[in-house]
């Protein structure tokens, strides 16, 4: 057991630290600036050889052990740089359920950042109960035609492609009739409506209306009716702080707040520091377990709860340090409330833990 870097890990960390030091002062200062420059950040990180670390080389990754992602996340946070682009769950979904042809076509662009993606899962009537979704896909000649309404679609306004869940068979029950597609976002038949979040930010989440949007017949991923399995892979990874890569940014915010506090720090900030350190170490443990080929199933829900508690403790610290008068800290607090909803609510995570890990029958 060793929490320290192995020599090759230390060398990687040094290279990364040097690269980041050369870019000091250029990182976005505000949320708006962050969003507007996120695509360039993704491409820069990839171009310098620091993104897609644990993904296969044949799709543009580096085939490194998953612990390298920890090093990346820690160093980005330490340097005050933006977090690692958060698309590991899409890579996992397409990687595991798409054909080799699909992977060759779509994974490299996703990993390099040359093609941007969004995820069309949730609907106004299908949130926690995702299998009740009603968006339809109908085969007309050699094209699928889509009708329906998606919501909470992150980055939909800048996406080139959408990984879309739609119903292809209304005669079978619930999840059996759901299929997954790759849909071009640049076409008629797609309408975007931004959502303004409670912190005032309006460039992350959107609603997307599909009204006759089309995709070639071979943009169906796997077979018709296999969409649910892909959806479960994606949401499973979407829950994991180790895949998401933003746990390190909590530590960054805690350190920034510690620097601006005068006198004894408030209890909320001290507790946020404890939670943040716990999560940092928890991610290391989880990624180490991957060396045993541990496949993450319901345990991802435990990780999601821990991440949520951490982010919301940091949110409370932000409120304790900045009150309601510091716009950035207030925004961090308000944004933290979404963590117990996005990627599956805390209540759904607890259902999964109770039934699938503790064996408490629902």
């Amino acid at each position, binding site marked *: 057991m060793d*929490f320290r870097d192995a020599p090759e890990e230390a060398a990687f960390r040094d290279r990364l630290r040097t690269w980041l030091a050369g870019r000091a002062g250029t990182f976005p200062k505000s949320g708006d600036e962050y969003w507007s420059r996120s695509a360039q950040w993704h491409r820069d990180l990839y171009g310098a050889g620091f993104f897609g670390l644990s993904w296969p080389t044949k799709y543009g990754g580096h085939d490194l052990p998953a612990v390298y992602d*920890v090093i990346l996340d820690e160093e980005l946070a330490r340097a005050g740089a933006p977090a690692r682009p958060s698309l590991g769950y899409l890579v996992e979904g397409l990687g595991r359920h798409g054909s080799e042809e699909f992977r060759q076509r779509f994974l490299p662009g996703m990993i390099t950042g040359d093609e941007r993606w969004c995820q069309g899962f949730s609907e106004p009537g299908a949130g926690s109960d995702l299998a009740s979704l009603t968006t339809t896909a109908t085969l007309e000649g050699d094209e699928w035609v889509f009708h329906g309404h998606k919501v909470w679609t992150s980055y939909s306004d800048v996406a080139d492609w959408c990984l879309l869940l739609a119903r292809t068979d209304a005669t079978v029950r619930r999840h059996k009739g759901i299929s997954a597609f790759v849909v071009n976002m640049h076409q008629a038949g797609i309408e975007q409506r931004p959502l303004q979040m409670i912190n005032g930010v309006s460039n992350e989440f959107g609603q997307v209306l599909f009204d006759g949007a089309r995709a070639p017949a071979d943009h169906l991923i796997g077979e018709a009716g296999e969409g649910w399995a892909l959806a479960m892979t994606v949401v499973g990874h979407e829950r994991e702080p180790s895949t998401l890569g933003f746990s390190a940014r909590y530590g960054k915010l805690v350190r920034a707040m510690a620097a601006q506090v005068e006198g004894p720090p408030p209890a909320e900030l001290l507790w946020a520091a404890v939670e943040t350190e716990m999560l940092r*170490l928890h991610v*290391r443990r989880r990624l180490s377990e991957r060396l045993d080929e541990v496949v993450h199933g319901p345990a991802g829900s435990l990780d999601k709860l821990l991440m949520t508690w951490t982010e919301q403790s940091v949110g409370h610290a932000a409120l304790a340090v900045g009150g309601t008068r510091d716009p950035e800290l207030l925004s961090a607090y308000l944004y933290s409330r979404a963590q117990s909803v996005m990627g599956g609510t805390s209540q759904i*995570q*607890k259902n999964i833990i*109770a039934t699938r890990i503790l064996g*408490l029958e629902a």
Partner: protein
Amino acid sequence: MDVRLTPEQRQLRAAAARLADDLGPGSVLDLADDDRVARLEKAVAATGWRSLRSDGASGVEVALVVEEFARGLVDVPFAGPVLADDLRRPADDRRDPAGAGAGEAQPWTIAVDGEAFDARGLRDVVSAEGNQLLSGRVGEPVTAIDLTRVRATVLGPREPVGELSPEAAGRWPALAVVVTAADALGAARGAHALAVDYAKVRSQYGHPIGSYQAIAHLLAESLALIEGSVSVLRHAAWAVDELSVAEARAAARIAKVYVQRAARTICETAVQVHGGIGNTWECLAHVHLRRVLTSTELFPVRLEEIDLGFS
């Protein structure tokens, strides 16, 4: 970076868990079963684990055994003797001259704040006063809330039995804090297991209470707290031997502050899930809670002691 337990560490953990499951108290009545206690004492003595530190074991191994023993409410001395063994370890001239080697000599325990801790059946105590190691004798038992570990007065004369190097004097508290945090985590895990089992068999409104989200969600939260505790504690246990004194102490403080809060919540949940029964003396839930509260107060760490300059 590879923070998995080694195969040997997993075996040690499994062996400690088996021993605790086989001979630990399975009910409050069992606490008074002197035959069982005698068998447990013999089994624990036979493992030689009370001298893990002088046998060269790391903080990780010590914490694993402490955690499993606490999970099974092992009610013969362990944490105290392990810490005493660590104090008396480094130099041969501090050894009990009568001691015939690891695992054979009568173990010592430690004195904390003038009281012998974990002293059941033991004769000698050691405590660190600055760099000085002082011996004493276990006196009369004193009233304590923990039903699984005995506290006692310390009788003089307190005699110097050795001296710690500044390094050892600085590092020892990290182990003590980690051991008491591991004990709290283990005791909480035991309470959680008890509550999960109960939620599967206790029926109300015609269904097991664990089928209701109101109960299931409490137990799910407890499991997440356990997982977070395991992660933060593992690092602190590793840090005892592998990081600088200051870093090891900081890691131990973080772990204890996290674990003590989690452990109390987990035990309170276990009491709640047991309903009225959980508030009676005969339910083991309070025995776990008492052990958690005791381990929290030993080598205490307050939230205000957390250093915001961490990592």
